[in-house]
């Protein structure tokens, strides 16, 4: 099926906006995606008609909001094909999901001298929580490296695993390089040695269909706002047996069964890990976003975004002095680049003046920048609502900047 991009673009009000008097070209999708009216309207509807604190309410509105929240959980479950509904925990986002697992998993399973493996291409949010935990537990953090194309050296993984290794935490897709990592292979290697795996899917759920049961992954984390949903809502999927064995991370309302000063007992999954009033309106928004994406079809989205990636890669590569960082064989629609003699910040600032939104800097992946010996890059990341004409605008914009620097 070919996507009707013009029709799709009408679903996203912000794409009609002007920036500095020019048509907005939004190429910062890896940082956050724009929201379709279907998501915005659903959330507004709840605020207008149904808002009420969820769970344990006796009245009509509370039941409506509770239904909305739990329906969203069901949508997430189907989206990633989790076996059980209670394996879906709502969090604030990917970062909180990783922190939850790092802390709770470590409390139960990680001790002095144990090991955690992350990759060299992780986002800081899948490095720092593990560093904190390793420091606390006197455990060791090991790093799986990548090659200069930006491909993980997966064949080294088995050799890095010892009988002290407890978990491998790795991203499915790199936010700064666009690399699609061979997650099935990584899981199989780890599991063969009895090691658990957490997959950071923040950059992949919006591009590729994920099936947690097929992968047999232990933990999967992602954010709503990179999936066309609202900010402030994210997901932790965990296998039932692990989540049951792990202690609660945050305490408060909702997560308890009985509270006594002599000792408190905890609620069942998923509520054990959802302390405090849940972010139910954003959860409902996330549900609407997933329905929107599934309606278009992830296969269609992937096919079209690959087309955009190929087109942009070819065009940008033809620019004199432009170097692309992240040239893996399997990539998603992310292009990190630098032009000889032009600082990424200058490039980003000037493109902005032309209405083109790109991200500049380290993209919260300083180790990736250190690998290449650079301070940062310009990153253009495409979504299914982008067009080849917009890529032409980026191409022409870069040429214009180059010209400004020649004089």
């Amino acid at each position, binding site marked *: 099926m070919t996507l009707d991009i013009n029709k799709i673009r009408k679903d996203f009000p912000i794409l009609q906006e002007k920036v*500095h008097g020019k048509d907005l070209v939004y190429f910062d999708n890896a940082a956050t995606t724009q929201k379709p009216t279907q998501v915005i309207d659903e959330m507004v509807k709840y605020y207008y008609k149904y808002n009420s604190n969820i769970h344990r309410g006796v009245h009509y509105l509370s039941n409506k909001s509770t239904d909305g929240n739990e329906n969203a959980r069901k949508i997430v479950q189907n989206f990633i094909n989790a076996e059980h509904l209670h394996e879906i925990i709502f969090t604030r986002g990917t970062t909180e999901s990783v922190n939850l697992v790092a802390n709770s998993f470590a409390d139960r399973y990680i001790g002095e001298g144990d090991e955690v493996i992350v990759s060299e291409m992780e986002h800081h949010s899948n490095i720092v929580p593990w560093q904190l935990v390793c420091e606390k537990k006197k455990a060791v953090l090991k790093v799986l490296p990548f090659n200069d194309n930006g491909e993980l050296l997966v064949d080294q993984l088995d050799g890095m695993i010892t009988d002290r290794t407890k978990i491998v935490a790795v991203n499915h897709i790199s936010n700064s390089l666009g690399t699609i990592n061979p997650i099935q292979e990584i899981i199989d290697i780890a599991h063969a040695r009895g090691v658990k795996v957490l997959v950071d899917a923040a950059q992949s759920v919006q591009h590729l269909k994920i099936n947690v049961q097929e992968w047999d992954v232990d933990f999967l984390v992602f954010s709503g706002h990179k999936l066309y949903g609202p900010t402030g809502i994210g997901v932790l999927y965990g296998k039932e047996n692990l989540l049951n064995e792990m202690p609660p991370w945050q305490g408060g309302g909702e997560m308890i069964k009985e509270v006594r000063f002599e000792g408190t007992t905890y609620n069942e999954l998923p509520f054990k890990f959802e302390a405090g009033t849940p972010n139910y309106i954003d959860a409902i928004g996330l549900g609407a976003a997933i329905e929107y994406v599934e309606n278009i079809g992830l296969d269609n989205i992937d096919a079209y975004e690959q087309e955009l990636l190929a087109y942009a890669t070819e065009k940008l590569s033809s620019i004199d002095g432009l170097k692309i960082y992240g040239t893996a064989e399997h990539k998603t629609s992310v292009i990190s680049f630098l032009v000889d003699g*032009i*600082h*990424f*910040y*200058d490039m*980003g*600032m*000037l493109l902005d*003046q032309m209405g083109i939104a790109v991200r*500049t*800097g380290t993209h919260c992946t300083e180790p990736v920048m250190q690998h290449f010996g650079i*301070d*940062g890059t310009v990153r253009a990341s495409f979504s299914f609502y982008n067009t080849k004409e917009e890529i032409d605008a980026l191409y022409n914009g870069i040429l*214009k900047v180059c010209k*400004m*620097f020649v*004089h």
Partner: protein
Amino acid sequence: MTINEIQEEIIEEFAGFEDWMDKYAYLIELGTDLQGLDEQYQTDQNLIKGCQSKVWFNASLEEGKVKLEADSDAIIVKGIAALLIRVFNNQNPEDIMNADLNFIDEIGLKQHLSPTRSNGLVSMVKQIKMYGIAFNHVK
């Protein structure tokens, strides 16, 4: 010239630019022309760290006047630093301390005043003012 007179002069200059490209081309020119800092002065102590680009300022007091030098790895940021130097170089510490900066707003560079993650223009101004305070104390 006083700090305010220089600011007025800059505002007038920028008013002559017809579009953003002229303005930024001028900043690029200023950045390119600004004599950078000797590597010995590109130290962590002189570094003003924005998240995106590096800026180094070096200051000294000569005959009661503050002497400023700066460098940056991003050329537009260096151009902005050049404007700040033009305003503050050779001024009295006390005048720097008490200066009311309005030209940044007036020439449409306010977007670069974002307190986080940008080029650290706020930090640059703050650093220069700190030099003013410090040298005023020394005097």
